[in-house]
């Protein structure tokens, strides 16, 4: 058996961090989001699907920079494109041609979308989408699924303080519960600006849920009757379900689509796209940021999109993801555990039946991570183009041992 990893450097860095950074590490990267003692907090470098932490431990990584590294860490072609833009000055007095080229590429590629506004993070674009919807409809209320993540802005995050009123006009319903959704529309008739949904439900700390039959048609009927916009938050699934947008995969027609994460293989850029009908409203907003016109992400994104088309990315992700799912479930069964991989093949998440509080999941994922396979215990995983058959085989070999260890610890 391989020696288990130690995380001394991570812990030391964290101790230094809490002295000068509130909380040490914030948000979803904080130690409390994983299992302290079993996971690294700091990292040095990554290449392909391999990652090295601050202690020099190496992993086959299934988090992919929270989904961003869709082609793999340190992709040479993408990084070369970004580097060329960097050497050309990167951040100039205004945008470069690459911004226009990217908007043209995306409007040509993403189903039903006629324009693109670029920002940096997913939160920028989901928040802009909500603002655009409110101004466009002249209404305030937003409907979202309970437990869905749409970013770190106060209107949708866990930052619930009496002083912050951003959530007052945000209503939530249980995903797939069309009765509750209908009731919300009915009780708030004439007040709803938009419904925002992820392509399917991928909450943290829970199994993933696909849209039920008829769910999206109900959303369409209700939102059209209300005159509310339909916002698709495609930040996380982005390009792992369809090259034409995840809404295309499910055959739905949102008014606005927010994208980010994988669009430039780790370079900081996000985009809000929309239908022609909403373009004028979007254009009436004053939006910008010092670094929003930086050339590197645009160049990286153009290269990423081209490579994704050339390599037939979706087929690869589905094949690798299905291999992981089928074999993991089978290996768990051999060890006497009942595991289920939920979600799309390229965005899998493992849970165990009769383990609603994730105790077994936490043991399994921790033991895997301490043996060099980085599996998040509370957040869905991601497959990238850099994951090859041999990486999955090594993962499964480790999982075979760890399922047995997990079973023995129960």
């Amino acid at each position: 058996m391989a020696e288990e990893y130690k995380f001394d450097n991570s812990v030391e860095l964290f101790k230094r961090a809490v002295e000068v950074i509130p909380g040490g590490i914030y948000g979803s990267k904080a130690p409390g989001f994983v299992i302290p003692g079993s996971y690294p907090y700091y990292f040095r470098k990554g290449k392909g699907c391999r990652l090295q932490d601050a202690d020099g431990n190496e992993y086959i990584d299934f988090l992919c920079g929270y989904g961003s590294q869709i082609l793999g860490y340190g992709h040479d072609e993408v990084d070369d494109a970004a580097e060329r833009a960097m050497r050309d000055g990167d951040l100039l007095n205004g945008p470069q041609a690459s911004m226009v080229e990217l908007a043209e590429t995306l409007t040509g590629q993403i189903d039903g979308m006629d324009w693109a506004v670029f920002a940096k993070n997913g939160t920028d674009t989901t928040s802009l989408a909500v603002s655009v919807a409110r101004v466009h409809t002249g209404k305030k209320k937003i409907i979202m699924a309970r437990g869905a993540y749409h970013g770190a802005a106060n209107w949708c995050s866990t930052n619930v303080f009496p002083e912050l009123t951003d959530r007052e006009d945000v209503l939530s319903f249980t995903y797939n519960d069309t009765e509750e959704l209908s009731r919300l529309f009915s009780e708030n008739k004439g007040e709803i600006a938009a419904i925002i949904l992820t392509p399917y439900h991928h909450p943290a700390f829970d199994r993933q849920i696909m849209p039920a039959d008829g769910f999206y048609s109900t959303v369409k009927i209700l939102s059209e009757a209300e005159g509310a916009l339909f916002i698709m938050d495609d930040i996380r699934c982005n390009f792992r379900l369809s090259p034409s947008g995840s809404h295309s995969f499910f055959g739905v027609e949102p008014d606005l689509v927010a994208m980010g994460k994988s669009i430039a293989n780790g370079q900081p850029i996000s985009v809000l796209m929309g239908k022609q009908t909403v373009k004028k409203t979007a254009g009436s907003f004053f939006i910008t940021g010092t670094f929003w016109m930086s050339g590197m992400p645009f160049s990286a994104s153009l290269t990423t999109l081209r490579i994704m088309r050339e390599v037939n990315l979706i087929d690869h992700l589905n094949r690798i993801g299905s291999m992981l799912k089928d074999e993991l479930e089978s290996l768990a069964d051999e060890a006497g555990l009942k595991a289920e991989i939920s979600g799309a093949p390229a965005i899998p998440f493992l849970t165990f039946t009769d383990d609603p509080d994730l105790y077994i999941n936490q043991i399994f994922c921790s033991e895997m991570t301490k043996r060099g396979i980085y599996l998040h215990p509370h957040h869905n995983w991601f497959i990238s183009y850099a994951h090859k058959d041999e990486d999955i085989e090594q993962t499964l070999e480790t999982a075979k041992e760890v399922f047995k260890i997990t079973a023995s610890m129960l």
Partner: protein
Amino acid sequence: MLAHVKSGSAFQLLQMLAEEDPVVQEEIRNKSFILGLSVAGGMKRSVRISDSRITPLDGSVKGAGVIFRFPVYNELNNLLSGKKTKMLPILRSLAAGKIIAGFKTLTSRIPVYINAEPDFLDKNFRAVTRMLICAALRGIKEVAENDSYTAARVAGIPDGIIALQVENDAGLEARIEKSGSSFTVTTIADGRIPNAVLTFKDADTAHKLFTGKINAVVALGTSDVRIRGRIPMIQGLFPILDRLSYYMAIE
């Protein structure tokens, strides 16, 4: 709010003193009475002493032999901080004098543990730690149930049981259970599987954390404090704990 926190924690500590402290055990042996606290137009709560046990009773002063009635919350806080206070003792029992004297003896034992001298702490470390854990949970309960500032965050905490444990010390466990908007503190494991568990590496870590000698965030990062199970439940406690610290810092 401060009165809720202080009186709730004080009564919780009295309950535990009955389990841990020989002086209190001797004082309550063969005694049976109820002492109530009430604030005009506000909080009512009492402690029942019977069968060598002390039981906090929320929301009622029914059956109390003595009720300390305060015109405003601040006067109750003064009493609980050991300061001079204005209150009206309502005597409903012929033994009222003995009840008041007995209550004074009981409450005088709280600082012996909470502000323990080094020698005492050495000899009673485990008991002190257990009391600190339970008092903190009781404080969390009071804040969670009564503080409007944290109400919206409390609403977001999933229902269920959180257990606080000390590694390799099965007896050192306390629990807090959330059900809707109410919280219940239990000072022992009751056989039910908790939904989330917070484990201290050892009793020393628990003691240091609840006496403010180590930072909770650092303790979590160094895994001196470990969490497992339904993590959002534990994460939900942190802002309440922060708020509790705010109240506890008020003189």
